[in-house]
């Protein structure tokens, strides 16, 4: 999995993910969220448009990132999940905690 970080200003970082978010790559996402938050970007938008598969390890990494961002006074939001990601979110009752936005760039447009 590849991760590209874009700084949108105002403490917002977009993490653009590409590949599979699973037990092999989950720690990579945790590290990137931790680095972004440590550098003052506590509002994290995770762009899942390039993710074709997620498992429970990947879901755990998103929850870890959400907690990290919230502990710093921010938040983590996800955008553009495919049908497989939506299925996993639905089966695990995570659709409320990890509400999916249409676009990562506009996930924090309401603040």
């Amino acid at each position, binding site marked *: 999995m590849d991760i590209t970080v874009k700084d949108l200003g105002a403490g917002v970082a977009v993490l653009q993910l590409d590949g599979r978010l699973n*037990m092999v790559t989950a720690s990579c996402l945790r590290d990137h969220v931790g680095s972004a938050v440590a550098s003052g970007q506590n509002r994290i938008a995770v762009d899942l448009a390039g993710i074709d598969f997620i*498992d429970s390890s990947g*879901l755990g990494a998103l929850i870890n990132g959400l907690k990290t961002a919230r502990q710093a006074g921010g938040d983590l939001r996800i955008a553009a999940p495919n049908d497989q990601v939506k*299925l996993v979110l639905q*089966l*695990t009752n995570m659709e409320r905690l990890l509400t999916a936005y249409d676009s990562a760039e506009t996930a924090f447009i309401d603040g």
Partner: protein
Amino acid sequence: MAETRVHTLSMFAPPDDVDTVHNMLESVWSSAPQISMRDRVSFETALIELASNVIRHADGGGGVSCALTVEITADRIVGSLTDSGLAGNISLVAPSMPGELEESGRGLSIIHALVDEVDYDRCDDLNHWRISRKLES
């Protein structure tokens, strides 16, 4: 009568990992275009959760050897995984989902939600797992 197709994979983790299973499934799906996208997504998600659990929990330190078979019949897709690791810990009853801020503990619930049968047997120091999903008609 429809033909039964069997795909096999031998792996040793590490260095193999769940991406090895993903790659095997890519060839399975390309040879079975009759299987719906929902069946593919559901079975692959369940099988990857099973393989992840085996790799994470069955490795006692020296790696784990796995033999995976995926069998497609007229109405079912069946995954059979045999591993050389520690005795398995997968509940044959669907566990409840953990609290929403917990970072782990959802894999088994996902497996049970996506397949019709989950079987486990320990024999000759090997774990034998089997998951089966009835295909959409």
